[in-house]
C-alpha cells in the first residue's frame, strides 16, 4: 500500500476513534432536572399549603414533618440525613453543638466532664421516657411538643464529643461555607474543638458554697439534648440554672455578655462567635439533622422533582443549603 494512503487511513481511524469517544461521553452525560424552592416562615405554613394542594413537597424539620403527615397527608418522605450520609460519608450533619466558656473548661473541668456524661446518657433517656419528655421541657419554659418516640428518634439527638465530631463538623461547615461565607464567618481552627470528654466518675472538688453555672439552650429539638438534665441531674457544689430561649440570637447575646457558661447553639454560629474572639470552645455535637423532604405523593427518585415546587423553611440557613446541596448532587438544579 502506498505510504500516503497508509497515513490517510491511520489519521481517519484516529479521528473516528476520538469522535466515538466524544459521542459516548455525550450519551453518558446525566440528565439535569429543575425544581423551584419557595421559602416559608415556619412548618405550619407548609402544612396549610400541602393540605390545600398548592404544593406537593416541603422540607420540614421534626416535629413539623410528622405533623404534615398527620394533618396534610404528606406521608411520603426522603430522609435528608441519609442522603447526606450517602454523599459525605458522615452520619447526619452536626447542626447544633454544645459550647462552654474557657472559664468552665479550665476551672470546672470535672463538673464539665460529668455534665457531658449526663448529656450522653440523655440520648437513651429521651427515647425510653419519650412520653414524659414534652412535659419535662414545657415545665422549663419550652413551647415544643414531641408527640411520640418516633418523632424524638427522627430528631437525631446523639452525643459526640468535640474531638470525635471534628471531621463531621468541618465537613458540614465547609459545605455551608460554599453557599454563603457569612453563614460561618471564618472556618474554625483546631483550637475550636475542646479535648474534654464525658466522664461519669469525674470527682467534683469539695468546696464551700456553690458555683452558679448558667446553661442556655434554644427551644425545639436542641432542648431534647438536656431533657434528662432538666429532669433529675444534680452536681454537688454546683447550682446549674437552665434557660430555654426562643432563638439562637438570644444565646449568642448571652455568650457575648457573659451570662451563659454553657450553651447549645447552631454549630455555624458557635464557629462564628469563636472566630470573633469569644472565649468559648465546642465541647460536643448533639443534633445531627432533622430535615425531611415530605410529600403528598410518592417520591422514589429525585428526578421526580423535575418541574416541581418545594417549600422550605430556613432561607439562608441550614435547611436551604442542605436541600440545595443534596438536590445539586442528584442533578436537580434549583432557582
Amino acid at each position: 500500500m502506498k505510504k500516503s494512503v497508509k497515513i490517510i487511513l491511520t489519521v481517519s481511524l484516529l479521528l473516528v476513534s476520538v469522535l466515538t469517544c466524544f459521542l459516548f461521553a455525550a450519551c453518558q452525560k446525566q440528565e439535569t432536572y429543575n425544581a423551584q424552592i419557595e421559602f416559608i416562615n415556619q412548618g405550619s405554613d407548609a402544612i396549610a399549603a400541602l393540605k390545600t394542594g398548592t404544593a406537593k413537597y416541603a422540607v420540614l424539620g421534626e416535629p413539623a414533618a410528622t405533623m404534615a403527615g398527620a394533618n396534610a397527608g404528606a406521608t411520603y418522605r426522603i430522609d435528608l440525613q441519609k442522603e447526606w450520609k450517602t454523599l459525605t460519608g458522615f452520619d447526619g450533619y452536626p447542626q447544633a453543638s454544645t459550647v462552654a466558656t474557657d472559664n468552665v473548661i479550665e476551672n470546672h473541668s470535672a463538673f464539665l466532664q460529668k455534665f457531658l456524661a449526663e448529656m450522653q446518657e440523655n440520648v437513651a433517656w429521651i427515647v425510653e421516657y419519650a412520653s414524659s419528655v414534652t412535659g419535662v421541657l414545657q415545665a422549663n419554659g419550652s413551647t415544643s411538643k414531641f408527640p411520640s418516640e418516633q418523632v424524638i428518634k427522627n430528631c437525631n439527638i446523639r452525643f459526640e464529643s468535640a474531638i470525635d465530631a471534628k471531621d463531621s463538623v468541618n465537613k458540614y461547615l465547609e459545605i455551608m461555607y460554599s453557599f454563603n461565607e457569612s453563614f460561618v464567618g471564618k472556618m474554625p481552627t483546631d483550637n475550636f474543638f475542646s479535648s474534654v470528654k464525658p466522664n461519669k466518675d469525674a470527682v467534683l472538688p469539695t468546696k464551700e458554697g456553690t458555683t452558679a453555672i448558667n446553661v442556655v439552650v434554644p427551644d425545639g429539638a436542641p432542648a431534647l439534648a438536656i431533657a434528662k438534665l432538666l429532669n433529675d441531674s444534680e452536681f454537688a457544689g454546683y447550682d446549674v440554672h437552665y434557660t430555654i430561649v426562643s432563638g439562637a440570637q438570644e444565646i449568642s447575646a448571652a455568650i457575648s455578655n457573659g451570662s451563659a457558661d454553657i450553651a447549645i447553639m447552631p454549630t455555624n454560629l458557635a464557629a462564628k462567635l469563636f472566630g470573633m474572639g469569644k472565649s468559648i470552645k465546642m465541647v460536643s455535637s448533639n443534633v445531627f439533622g432533622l430535615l425531611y423532604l415530605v410529600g403528598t405523593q410518592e417520591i422514589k427518585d429525585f428526578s421526580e422533582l423535575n418541574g416541581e415546587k418545594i417549600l422550605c423553611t430556613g432561607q439562608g440557613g441550614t435547611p436551604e443549603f442542605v436541600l440545595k446541596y443534596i438536590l445539586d448532587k442528584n442533578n436537580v438544579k434549583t432557582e
Partner: protein
Amino acid sequence: MKKILKKWQNVLYLLLSLGIIVGLWALLAKIVNIELIIPSLQSTFRQLGRILSAKDFYIALGSTLWRSLASFAIGAFSALGLSLLSLLKPVKKILSPFIKIIRSVPTMSVILLAVIWLKPTVSPIFVAFLINFPIMYSGFLSAMESIDGELISMSKIYNVSLKDRVLSLYLPSVAPAAFDCMQSSISLTVKIIISAEVLAQTRNSLGIMMQISRAYLETAELIAYTITAIVLSYLLELVVFGIKKAVVRWK
C-alpha cells in the same frame, strides 16, 4: 449673616439632629462594648459601603421598592375613589364598618393570614394595602368634607357637571391635605412591606436580607440595611412632596 443663617437653618437643624443621633449611638456602643449587640459606627458604615457595592442589594432594593409603590398606588387610588363616592351619605354609612374593621385588625394577624392565602411576592403588597388604605381614605374623606359648603352649593346652582366638580373643585381643594396624608403613608407602606417580607419569606427583598443578617449575627449589616430602608422612605416622601409642590403651584 442672619439672612444666611435663616436660609440654611433647616439644613443646620437636620445636621444637628443627625449629630445627636450619631453621638448617642457612638456613646451606647462604647458603653455596651459588645459588637454583636450594638456595633460601632465604623463597622456599620463599613458594612454599608459593602452592601452598596453588592449587586444583590440593588435587586432586593428594587424588589422592595416596586412592592411599596404598587401597594401605595393601589391604596391611594382606592382611597381616592371610595372617598369621592363616600360624599354620598348612604355609601359612607355602608363603607364605615368595613373601614373600622380594616383599621382595627392587628397588623401581625393580617400578615400571618396573608402568608397563607397569597404568594410570597404578593402577600406584602396586600398587607401594606390593608394598612395604608384606611389611613388615606380617612385623610381624603376628611379633606373633602371640609370643602366650603357654599362653593359646593354654588356649583350645584350653576349646574356644573359632576366631572367638572370633581376635577375643578373637589380634587384641587383636597390636594394639599391629601398629599400630606400620602407623604406619611408612603413611609409607613415601606415599613410594613419590609415586615411582611420577613414573615412571607419573600426572596430577593430587603426584609429577607435583614432577617438573614440577623440569623448570621451580622448586627452591623442589619443596621446598614435599616439605614438604606430609612433613606428609601425619606426619598419617597421627598418625591411625594415634590409632586405636591408641582400640583399645588399649578392650582
